[in-house]
């Protein structure tokens, strides 16, 4: 859980920073997207870097999903009889890890169909991500799905980052507060960074 989660987190930081290029116009973003295909040349061939990253990410998502399923099965088995007197437990972020994770998995599928394969994209012009992004976020469902998913992401990271640190043995009584602050800051930066793009399109800053 923790290792695959951290792999995805590292990716998300770079992904978010890359997305912000949308604010510098179509030339910047489309140029950046083209560059992602030539990274590593001539050691790697055209597009190889991208495919290596995609394979690593797919592995991380699959490992994370399978581990989440196994952990959940085990946890439900360990409490066969529920309490009659139920009570709200833990923070919202902590309680929503399972369903939030499922929402994120569904979002990843939608996101790939929308902006990678362009299957459901209203503009769907390969090599022109800027125009595809603007077209997608100009529809109510495109922007809506994205915003909901990013709020889910923020919550997942808020618990996930601290939880991963705890799992990997990085926490101790003195560090606990600092790690929680870092988790909240990271969750906030990722959510705001990712959300700024659809919001930019919706309010017309990006068009």
């Amino acid at each position, binding site marked *: 859980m923790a290792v695959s989660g951290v792999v995805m987190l590292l990716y998300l930081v770079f992904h978010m920073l890359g997305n912000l290029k949308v604010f510098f116009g179509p030339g910047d973003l489309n140029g950046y997207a083209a560059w992602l295909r030539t990274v590593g040349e001539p050691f790697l061939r055209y597009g190889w870097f991208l495919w290596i990253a995609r394979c690593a990410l797919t592995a991380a998502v699959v490992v994370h999903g399978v581990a989440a399923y196994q*952990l959940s099965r*085990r*946890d*439900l*088995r*360990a*409490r*066969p*009889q*529920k*309490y*009659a*007197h*139920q*009570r709200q*437990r*833990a923070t919202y972020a*902590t309680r929503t*890890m399972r369903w939030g994770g499922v929402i994120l998995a569904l979002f990843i599928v939608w996101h790939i169909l929308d902006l990678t394969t362009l299957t459901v994209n209203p503009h769907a012009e390969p090599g022109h991500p800027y125009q595809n992004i603007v077209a997608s976020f100009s529809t109510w469902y495109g922007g809506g799905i994205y915003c909901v998913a990013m709020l889910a992401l923020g919550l997942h990271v808020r*618990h996930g980052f*601290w*939880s991963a*640190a*705890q*799992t*990997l*043995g*990085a*926490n*101790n*009584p003195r*560090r*606990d507060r600092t790690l929680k602050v870092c988790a909240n800051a990271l969750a906030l930066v990722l959510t705001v960074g990712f959300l700024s793009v659809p919001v930019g399109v919706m309010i017309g800053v990006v068009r």
Partner: protein
Amino acid sequence: MNLTLRIWRQAGPDAPGALTRYQVSGISPEMSFLEMLDTLNEELILAGDQPIAFDHDCREGICGACGMVINGQAHGPERTTTCQLHMRHFRDGDTIDVEPWRAAAFPVVKDLVVDRSAFDRIIGSGGYITAPTGSAPEAHATPVPKEAADLAFEHAECIGCGACVAACPNGSAMLFTAAKVVHLNVLPQGAPERSSRVRSMVATMDDEGFGGCTNTGECATACPKGIPLSGISMLNREFLRGAGR
């Protein structure tokens, strides 16, 4: 005080159980929760009924026997043991739900009594140091850094009550196991068995059917002795360190 209690009654390990409603009156706010149950049991005995079975021993908050879930909270609304919970934390006319610890690894024996011997088996698999017994060693023979002593003491406070397992939505025993592993592993006396201790205690914990930890934190919130949640992280570090040895 007059109270309505809904208490889990179950005749034996395999018998079906149910929450059963009781009325108690004349409860004084100074009574402990166990004394309130004693009052009810006296009435039940006089009426020829089976008294409610519950575990208790020291009644001063140090043995960890008196586990029960009160209104969905392990040991009730205060962060203490049930024997140290006083009726002044309830109001006249309240309805109070009382259930046993719920975990696959803690099967119900009768009513509110559960079998916590899974904890004993975890301790038995490494929660000790191998040392010759006899007269106490000279205190200065093994210097212990102050920081290690404080950390060990903080974790040594665990009384094995099982509230952490009862409160955890996953029925996980990580906080309990962490308390014992950290207590011994940070001390020089525990160092020789540092790796084998963590490996075999975690293996036993897993075999006993406790759930996995998702760092929910309910355990540390419920723990009457304030074992810190970050102790689980220190257990994980010991486990990663010990895995290769």
